[in-house]
């Protein structure tokens, strides 16, 4: 069975009497260990797909199985848990907590998992070493460059060994040099066995993936 299986999934937003079909009858399978790029222009529905895949939002119709769990049947707390254990997020805007230094940001998912302090620190330090930022672990996000911040976010995304890494335009706010480095880390993670779903509008970046899924007007092309 594939890691991610979506069948006939639709998402409809209603504003007053106007219905907008953000996703229209989408079906999709992603196997464990794949590196998939979802590409499409803005407003195509790729962010909606990302939110549903990340268990942040629910669908209007259809089914979503993540690692054999039917996501639509889960309650709020179970969704939070599945986000914590199964998924690592990398956002375009990094989304680090500004009051915390690098290692504290990386520790965050482990705190909600209840990992003891020492173990948490050890795991987070290892994650930061993998992205080459162990010497910056006590720096706040404001003291790091954009590329460094995104690498901290990558460390935070994989520190808890999730099955899926969801990256939403991870290089969108970065210069090309930092972007390459961030992509290299993501590719490395994929090679170590993590399934990666990368959302982008840049076909250059998408070319790094094994498979490219094009989405337009809420439909997979």
């Amino acid at each position, binding site marked *: 069975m594939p890691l991610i299986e979506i069948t006939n999934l639709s998402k409809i937003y209603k504003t007053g009497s106007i219905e907008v079909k953000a996703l229209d009858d989408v079906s999709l399978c992603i196997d464990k260990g794949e590196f998939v790029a979802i590409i499409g222009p803005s407003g195509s529905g790729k962010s909606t797909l990302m*939110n549903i895949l*990340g268990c*942040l*939002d629910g669908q209007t119709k259809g089914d979503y199985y993540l690692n054999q769990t039917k996501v639509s049947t889960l309650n*709020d*707390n179970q969704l*939070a*848990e599945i*986000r*914590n*254990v199964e998924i690592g*997020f990398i*956002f375009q805007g990094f*989304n*680090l*907590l500004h*009051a915390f230094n690098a290692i504290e940001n990386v520790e*965050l*998912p482990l*705190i*909600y*998992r*209840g990992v*003891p302090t020492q173990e948490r620190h050890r795991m987070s330090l290892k994650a930061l070493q993998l992205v080459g930022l162990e010497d910056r672990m006590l720096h706040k996000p404001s003291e790091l460059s954009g590329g460094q911040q995104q690498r901290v976010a990558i460390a*935070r995304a994989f520190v808890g060994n999730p099955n899926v890494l969801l990256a939403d335009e991870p290089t969108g706010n970065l210069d090309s040099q930092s972007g390459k480095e961030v992509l290299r880390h993501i590719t490395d993670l994929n090679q170590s066995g993590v399934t990666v779903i990368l959302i982008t509008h840049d076909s250059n970046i998408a070319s790094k993936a094994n498979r490219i899924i094009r989405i337009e007007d809420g439909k997979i092309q």
Partner: protein
Amino acid sequence: MIHSHFQSFRLAMRGIRTNRLRSILTMLGVIIGVGSVVTLVSVGSGVKEYISSQIESIGSNLIIVSLRGRTGATTLSLNECLALSDRNGIDKVAPSISGDVTVKADGNKHETSYEGTTEDYGSVRNYKVESGRFISAFDIEYGQKVVLLGKTVTDELSNGKNLLNTIVKINVYNFKVIGLLAEKGTTIIGAPDDKILMPITTAERVMGNKTIRTLFIKSDNPDTVHATIQALNRTLSKKLRDDNAFSVINQQDILSTLNTVSRTLTLFLSAIASISLLVGGIGIMNIMLVSVTERTREIGIRKAIGAKRANILSQFLVESMVLSGIGGLLGIGIGIFCTVLIARLISIDPSLSISAMLFSLLFSLVVGVVFGMYPAYRASNLSPIEALRFE
């Protein structure tokens, strides 16, 4: 879960440190509320203890009978008064006639009050003679013009001289000073040192005042004071045929009345001070709502990463409790400071009320929970996507 509460606590402390001024302003209501409750209750109980010790110094077996009657029928004669001492439970009786006089000596003049009484007055009222002697049975029998001076009167008149055995002028009459009374100290009831004592018969004859207004009675035994008071009430009621013409009180009655008054007053003032605690709670709620809005994105990130509703709820609840708790502790500190300061100003012993401190600390924590609940609930209910979209 405890683990995550500890994290929330550390987080809240960090938030307070980074927003120092805002946090202190937020806590101000709680600080003032707790500070004033602690001060009021502590100063109140200090004053109460002071008053109690003053009244207890009167002696627990002293009974005071006030006679309000104007005519001979509604008062007692000297002999009737003295006869009371033969009754059960009564040790000694000192009837008293009183009024205002002017005392002159050596060119000095002093307005004071006199009491005409008997030889037992000293032991009933606990007056000590510093030098000379007290009124004797002989003085009473012959209505001698002799006088004892209270400490204040002595100080006002003496000019450094020893007034014992000298002659002073009371109104227009010459009196011989047979004794000087030792200092009793100030009490809240009257000025016990600003008076002169003379034989009761002299007061009747020379001052023309024949109405005994007050009887000071020493009971045998402090434990049977109440039985004695009841017996006295019956006797006087029968003799005077008018229950409104007299009243019998004792130290314990005064004490319990004063205690009731001071307790009510303290409670009333504390209730007013507690309102400030409530207002402080509203301040905390206000700032917590601001904080939830400011940190919408943070809440979104935390939820995306796996925070449950309960985690977010506890984070904001702990934060508002930390705010109100620190406010409470600062308030207790200020309360202690104010209590010691006020106690020193009005020269009483500070009586810090531990229970008031614990109560107001607990109350401020409850305020923190109650007023933090709504903002925390709002934070925990935010949808993660909308929160992440928030700029």
